[in-house]
């Protein structure tokens, strides 16, 4: 009986989010077949260890790198898959939908939904909020000849993301930084 309970517990533990996966981390496949078909591909997988190592090699003299260094100290991972094709819609929509399904899980909220019918561009930006703190950022950008998924994991400081505005071409997306409500003022003492 105890063995059955233990097996059920293990099955439940492994059946949920992928084992060892951090909060805000998406299960992004390697897209090996897409990489073969793509004319250009970018695949970046930086877990907390590699991210820390990469951050330590950024120069503080370069203002751009110094800002990134400040930002990445609170992050736990950055995962990017970007594929460019020679033909329109050479990638299966099921790959996009698989990621989109993960981003529809509770906790994730879409902050930007941009669709251009003329250019066939569709960009969605999602944020995983936990106690008014952004713990994950997900971007799905699908264009006729390009397919990009970005997942940034960790305590994302939206103010710091704002500070990257202008650098790397990060535009002002109008992301509202949630501010904590001030503590209630003590009731005034009644004068007798």
């Amino acid at each position, binding site marked *: 009986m105890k063995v059955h309970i233990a097996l059920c517990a293990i099955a439940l533990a492994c059946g949920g989010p992928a084992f060892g996966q951090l909060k805000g981390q998406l299960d992004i496949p390697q897209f090996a077949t897409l990489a073969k078909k793509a004319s250009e591909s*970018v695949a*970046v997988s*930086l877990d907390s260890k*590699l*991210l820390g*190592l*990469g*951050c*330590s*090699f*950024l120069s503080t003299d370069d203002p751009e*790198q110094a800002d*990134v260094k400040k930002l*990445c100290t609170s992050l736990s991972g*950055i*995962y*990017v898959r*970007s594929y460019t094709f020679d033909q329109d819609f050479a990638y299966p929509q099921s790959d996009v939908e698989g990621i989109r399904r993960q981003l529809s899980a509770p906790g994730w909220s879409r902050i*930007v939904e*941009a*669709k*251009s*019918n*003329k*250019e066939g*561009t569709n*960009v*969605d*930006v999602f944020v995983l909020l936990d106690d008014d703190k952004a713990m994950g950022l997900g*971007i799905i*950008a699908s*264009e006729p000849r390009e397919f*990009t998924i*970005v997942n*940034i994991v960790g305590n994302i400081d939206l103010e710091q993301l704002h500070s*990257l505005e202008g650098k*790397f*071409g*990060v*535009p*002002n*997306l109008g992301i509202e930084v949630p501010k904590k409500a001030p503590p209630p003022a003590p009731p005034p003492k009644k004068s007798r």
Partner: protein
Amino acid sequence: MSENFENELRRALRPLDAPAGFTERLMAALPEKREIAPVATPVPQPRRVAQRFGVPAAFAAALVVSMLLGQHVAEVHRERTEQQAGLAASRELMEALKVTSQKLDLAYQAAKAPPPPVEEENRT
């Protein structure tokens, strides 16, 4: 025949007294009193110690030096590997942020673009 031979042999080998003055002449012919040479006892020489322990000591020293050298080479290799991995990771980080910013910019451009004009109905 054999008896004669034996007798001759006995006669020839019979003991004879030394001639007169033989002892004096012999003693005079002997050299002066000689000093007895001391027997040399084996004393451990530094060279022998070196011969005995030199090879193992050199071997041990070579072993220690090779170990230290190996450790140093491994340390240098580890540092170099770590540096290469760090530089590659920082390049990937910048590349990832570049892609992120491009896509955020795309979202911004798409969100900023004016909505397509609605075709007016033919009122005539």
